[in-house]
């Protein structure tokens, strides 16, 4: 692992004096307190360097009185920046944290985490793990973390679910830019290539207020690889090929850095799979193609810097053919059949129904360090998201998209951070955003999401105070203003049946006979906040207690949906009367971190007022038969659950880690379970590692997903003309529990002087187990994926 220079802080020295002070101290391992030998201590700005001796001690002489920044590094540890004052009373003890790789699996960032949160858990996927998942999508990668599950539409549309919540309640930050990619829909996956990220962290709550006040579920942070400040050129290429889907992924990146701080990084990914397969049949029309590319460049100087970033993402995803349903009669046939109603031969061709999504993201960021204060950062970003959905249509209209939405967003943010005080850190910032949604009328299908303009403005302040070695306090506040100005066409029959005509007559702009044009304008004032503490006690124990208040304005889909959502074969109806969701989340985490044994226990309670959910309410007769009507409804909900992580290192070669997640959701108004809550999940990983022999790593994963026993009953009866009888359509009964085993192996081979070749093999679902998952919306129609053997070839150069 390389050492890199993190943040260098400008240090000021005051008037000339006699420089005869001495600074003494020792460097210890954060986890077990052992002395670190050979750690490097650099006094920034003075160019004084020393190393620790065999007892982990160091000594710097002839130093002027003043405030300094020490940069402490060790080959096995993360580099740490420490502020000190000279003269210093007594000996200084600096604790360094081991690299995440040392702890092997997903670990939790320790108190050294300067950037995000201190009193709420932040779980991280390392770049090593990401590399082995280069064929996967973001949702699947995040499932490595406890408390994160996914809401799927088949195997290619995968949305992260954090502690039971998803879609607009999960904020995704891609290299400092909040993704604006129509995340509201259940079948809209995040438009992110995992290969463009150096690391991914999940914050299970809204406490990182700088990213938004509406993260009722949590925040996913994708961060690029850190740039090393020296002259070098390096890159990597990963090629994977999988048997299931008979396809693969090629991803490559190249980075050039200079001693003077300039850098450039470019990366590209191409992914292609044919139809995926369940154990007993082909999942017809589930092929996919994905392309991603990004370019990052900039300069990272001592006192200032800038970065330009552009990323492009495009995919085309087939949606399981057998899930396309005409009406209740078809739905009954499909659900009651053990096999999908359409099974064709394997193909790479993607037919309708399918999605085609393109996402452009560009940003420019400038920063300047402020002497004796901190840093000022300003960023502008632009995003353009185009979503096309193609359906099975009559009359040769299949080539014409049924949904064509263009979402453009411009954001301007400024963040001022304060870090001059050794114990007090803080951030304050503002945000301005303009967003426009344009629904192309050429589809010949009524607009699913109306044309709208949206303005957002926000201001936040957050701070952290370290009382002593034991206590750290954290708190923050954020205010968001959202303004939506929409042009929405309503069918007159719906407008009247929901009594909008009585309540909102003033927003009608024009009457077109059976449709009317309205101009709804909404203003939302959202307050959010966080408060918490971290208590470090005994040896390597931490207690994190956090309260967060998140407020989320309803999204366009919740407000404006009305009509048949073809891909879900149901009629969805929103409500313009909705108010903001207000979530009060309490979370407690107890952590113990040692090199040989670590665990985290994280219970939480999330009480959400005006929680918006979508549920079946009625059956509506149409000429194509009966359709279910799903209405958005606001209620008060409580979610509580627990995430547990454990890690034991048995000896130098063997280790085990395990994670367990459980969440329970309750609708307080009906006193019933909430729909679509992830079932309990237990995963255990057995690792074998041999550093001496090619850095061989073997691991076996056992993943047990329990049956969800708590769900609202939403079955309905339909009339079946084919038999002239009534029948029950069972939409609510969850599938059985399942257990999957996965295997992973990799080893390093030195090929040239500067290149390491890493070969990997993954077998997913070793026993080709048939299963269906409660959170897969296509579970009614087909089994989930069968065995997949993936070979991986990675070369670093």
């Amino acid at each position, binding site marked *: 692992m390389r050492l890199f220079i993190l943040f260098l802080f400008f240090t000021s020295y005051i008037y000339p004096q006699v420089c005869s002070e001495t600074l003494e101290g020792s460097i210890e391992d954060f986890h077990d307190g052992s002395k670190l030998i050979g750690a490097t201590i650099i006094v920034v700005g003075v160019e004084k360097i020393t190393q620790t001796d065999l007892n982990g001690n160091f000594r710097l002489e002839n130093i002027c009185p003043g405030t300094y920044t020490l940069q402490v590094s060790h080959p096995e540890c993360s580099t740490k920046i420490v502020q000190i004052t000279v003269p210093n009373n007594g000996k200084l003890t600096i604790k360094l944290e081991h690299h995440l790789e040392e702890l092997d699996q997903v670990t939790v960032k320790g108190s050294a985490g300067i950037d995000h949160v201190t009193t709420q858990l932040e779980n991280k996927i390392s770049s090593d793990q990401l590399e082995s998942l280069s064929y996967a999508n973001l949702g699947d990668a995040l499932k490595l973390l406890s408390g994160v599950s996914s809401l799927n539409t088949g195997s290619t549309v995968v949305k992260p679910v954090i502690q039971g919540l998803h879609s607009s309640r999960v904020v995704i930050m891609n290299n400092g830019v909040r993704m604006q990619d129509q995340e509201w829909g259940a079948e809209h996956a995040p438009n992110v290539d995992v290969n463009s990220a150096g690391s991914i962290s999940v914050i299970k709550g809204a406490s990182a207020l700088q990213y938004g006040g509406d993260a009722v579920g949590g925040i996913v942070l994708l961060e690029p690889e850190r740039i090393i400040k020296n002259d070098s050129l390096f890159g990597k290429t990963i090629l994977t090929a999988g048997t299931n889907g008979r396809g693969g992924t090629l991803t490559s990146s190249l980075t050039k850095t200079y001693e003077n701080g300039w850098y450039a990084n470019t990366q590209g990914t191409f992914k292609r799979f044919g139809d995926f397969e369940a154990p007993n049949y082909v999942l017809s029309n589930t092929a996919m193609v994905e392309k991603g590319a990004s370019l990052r460049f900039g300069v990272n100087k001592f006192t200032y810097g800038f970065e330009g970033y552009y990323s492009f993402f495009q995919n085309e995803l087939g949606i399981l053919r057998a899930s396309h349903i005409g009406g209740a009669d078809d739905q009954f046939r499909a659900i009651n059949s053990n096999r999908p109603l359409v099974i064709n031969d394997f193909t790479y061709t993607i037919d309708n129904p399918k999605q085609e999504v393109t996402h452009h993201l560009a940003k420019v960021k400038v920063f300047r360090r402020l002497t004796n204060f901190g840093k000022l950062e300003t960023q502008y970003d632009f995003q353009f998201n185009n979503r096309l959905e193609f359906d099975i249509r009559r009359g040769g209209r299949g080539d014409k998209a049924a949904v064509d939405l263009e979402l453009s967003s*411009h954001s*301007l943010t400024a963040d001022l951070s304060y870090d001059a005080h050794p114990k007090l850190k803080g951030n304050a910032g503002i945000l301005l955003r303009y967003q*426009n949604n344009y629904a192309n009328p050429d589809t010949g*299908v009524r607009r699913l999401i109306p044309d709208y303009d949206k303005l957002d403005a926000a201001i936040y302040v957050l701070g952290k105070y370290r009382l002593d070695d034991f206590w750290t306090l954290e708190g923050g506040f954020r205010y968001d203003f959202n303004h939506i100005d929409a042009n929405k066409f309503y*069918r007159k*029959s719906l407008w009247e049946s929901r009594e909008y005509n009585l309540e909102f007559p003033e927003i009608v702009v024009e009457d077109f006979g059976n449709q009317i*044009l309205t101009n709804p304008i909404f203003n939302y004032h959202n307050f959010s906040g966080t408060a918490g503490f971290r208590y470090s006690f005994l040896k390597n124990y931490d207690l994190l207690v956090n309260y967060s208040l998140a407020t989320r304005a309803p999204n366009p889909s919740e407000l404006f949906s009305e009509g048949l959502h073809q891909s879900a074969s149901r009629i969805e109806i929103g409500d313009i009367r909705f108010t903001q969701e207000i979530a009060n989340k309490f979370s407690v985490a107890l952590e113990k971190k040692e090199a040989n044994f670590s665990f985290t226990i994280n219970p939480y309670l999330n009480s959400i007022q005006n929680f918006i959910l979508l549920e079946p309410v009625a059956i509506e007769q149409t000429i194509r038969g009966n359709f279910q009507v799903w209405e958005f409804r606001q209620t008060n909900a409580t979610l509580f659950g627990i995430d547990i992580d454990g890690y034991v290192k048995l000896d130098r070669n063997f280790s085990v880690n395990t994670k367990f997640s459980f969440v329970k959701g309750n609708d307080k108004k009906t006193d019933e379970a909430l729909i679509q809550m992830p079932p309990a999940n237990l995963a255990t990983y057995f690792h074998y590692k041999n550093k001496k022999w090619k850095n061989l790593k073997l691991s076996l994963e056992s993943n047990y997903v329990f049956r969800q026993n708590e769900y609202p009953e939403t079955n309905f009866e339909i009339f079946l003309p084919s038999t002239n009888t009534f029948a029950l359509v069972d939409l609510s009964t969850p599938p059985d529990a399942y257990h999957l085993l996965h295997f992973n192996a990799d080893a390093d081979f030195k090929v040239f002087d500067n290149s390491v070749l890493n070969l990997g093999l993954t077998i997913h679902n070793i026993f080709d187990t048939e299963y269906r998952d409660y959170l897969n919306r296509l579970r009614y129609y087909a089994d989930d994926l069968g065995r997949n053997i993936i070979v991986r070839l990675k070369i670093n150069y």
Partner: protein
Amino acid sequence: MKNLKIIVLFFTATLFLTSCSRNDNGGDPINEEELITTLRVTLVTNQGPNVVIEYRDLDGDGPNAPIITSSSDLLANASYNASMVVLNETESPVDDITLEIKDEDIAHQFFYQVGGGLNITNITYLDLDENGNPLGLEFSLQTGAPSIGNFTITLRHDLDKFAEGVSEGNITNAGGDTDISVTFPLVIQ
């Protein structure tokens, strides 16, 4: 620092300059192109008056219920020739979807089912597609003794017309997607 200011200024300007949207007037309403609002069946017999039965739902998947009408009851013990018209009446002029079905005849087929105690027998296809399989826009039927029951008309597309029983009008093995599934309560007297 000067550069920084210029950059910030530049992007602020961009932000506001690009703030003009394409949809200030709200655009035009979209009429669902593929919507079927109306199925009209005209039953002709030489033993009495024509009977027109109709299913009409002008708001499509909107909340209003369809209107199902019948011009008169069917005569007992009569043979009728039926022909169907499929329309989208939200379009102006009215879109005659019958033509579209005829154009794509190999991908479409109607099915008829009799339920309850309704005495209708001998339902026979009177039209064929290019491959010589039935289409079903035209058919004949025979009424029996006075009775009451359901008569269901289903239109499937992308079905398997060669599957067993399908060309005889048995829907069981047809597969495909349902475009129309309409049940008429009928009276024979």
